[in-house]
């Protein structure tokens, strides 16, 4: 499980392991159905070792990861802020980007629209590069087809960002800086 996403789910307030899982499930809907719980706890253990979260065992409860209360440390908070600001679209990881928006809005960390705008700028630059390359190829060159594929993918990504923008614009008010 993506470390940034797990951390961000704790940005609003500390949570029990099972609550954290529920937050991820809620944010991801059916996409999160195949989520591996064990993996989340592996990630949490790593984050704890890295000093990004604390894991408090509640008195009187069994020593199980889902019963612990996880909270961000100051370093964890900073990591979340970095993750939100980071622009990455190497592979089309829609879920991670979606979780950024959800986490940013829920914890009041950043305006989802700003995150969308940053992402759009990056995608437009990539589109420009791919298109330049595509236009430079003769129409019947095999590479033109690959480049056309990249251009179409980027267009689809940009269209999705438009939908994100519309959705999050309608929900403004939830974000209070």
């Amino acid at each position: 499980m993506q470390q940034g996403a797990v951390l961000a789910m704790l940005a609003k307030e500390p949570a029990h392991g099972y609550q954290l899982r529920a937050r991820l499930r809620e944010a991801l809907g059916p996409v999160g159905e195949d989520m591996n719980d064990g993996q989340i706890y592996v990630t949490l253990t790593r984050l704890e070792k890295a000093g990004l979260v604390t894991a408090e065992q509640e008195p009187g409860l069994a020593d199980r990861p889902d019963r612990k209360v996880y909270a961000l440390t100051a370093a964890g908070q900073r990591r979340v802020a970095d993750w939100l600001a980071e622009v990455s679209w190497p592979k089309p990881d829609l879920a991670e980007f979606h979780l950024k928006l959800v986490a940013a809005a829920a914890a009041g960390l950043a305006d989802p629209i700003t995150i969308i705008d940053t992402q759009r700028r990056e995608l437009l630059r990539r589109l420009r590069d791919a298109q330049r390359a595509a236009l430079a190829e003769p129409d019947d060159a095999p590479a033109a087809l690959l480049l056309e594929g990249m251009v179409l993918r980027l267009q689809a990504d940009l269209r999705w960002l438009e939908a994100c923008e519309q959705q999050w614009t309608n929900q403004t008010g939830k974000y209070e800086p």
Partner: protein
Amino acid sequence: MSNIDTMTTVLRTQGLRKEYGREASLVRAVDGVDLEVARGETVAIMGPSGCGKSTLLYLLGGLDRSSGGEIWLDGQELGRLSERGLARLRRDAIGFVFQAFHLMDELTAVENVELPALLAGRSPRAARRRALGLLDRVGLADRARFLPAQLSGGQRQRVAVARALVADPAVVLADEPTGNLDSAATREVLRLFDQLHQAGQTLVIVTHDPRIAATADRIINMRDGTFVDQTMLQGGTSGRLGSLYALEG
């Protein structure tokens, strides 16, 4: 590759506004837009339907009067011009390209292109020479005598672009130039806009299509009548193509 002359502003607006209706039903279609377009620059304006981008283009082109603010084009403030002065400015300084081409069906390609020059009082011979030269430039020299109905969508839009260039305008304004085209025809028009851009033509494109927008130096994002974000595309690239789809690392 950049032909932008940052010292010279061709088109400038200040506090530009356009409102429709009144009181409770007041719609601010364009709400305080400040824009500066340098000579040789291509600017794309994007945004969701209804964000005011087409209204803005109509104001810039003097096809519609603003409710407030200023538009300076080629040294003239549009609001201070009479209808006649405005018509003259449109004819001499602005080229229009529309989504639906707006060609005259009963005129051939070359007749469509030369028409504005004839209306501007050029001699038929000079107008014809200019029109043929422009058709050659858009790659349609061999289609000069074809009627629009005999041309493909991409070819029709290229004729429309040739017509827009006939007066050698200070700026070409394009409203969704690829909006009616399939992907092969879109590529024809993209190539043409890219060529115009390289040749130093000043262009303002209003569009929904990121592909045509990506030919610009600068993309402005518009929402609710105002500019909210800007992406600079000219100059350095952001990464290698291979990294797009994990072909490397």
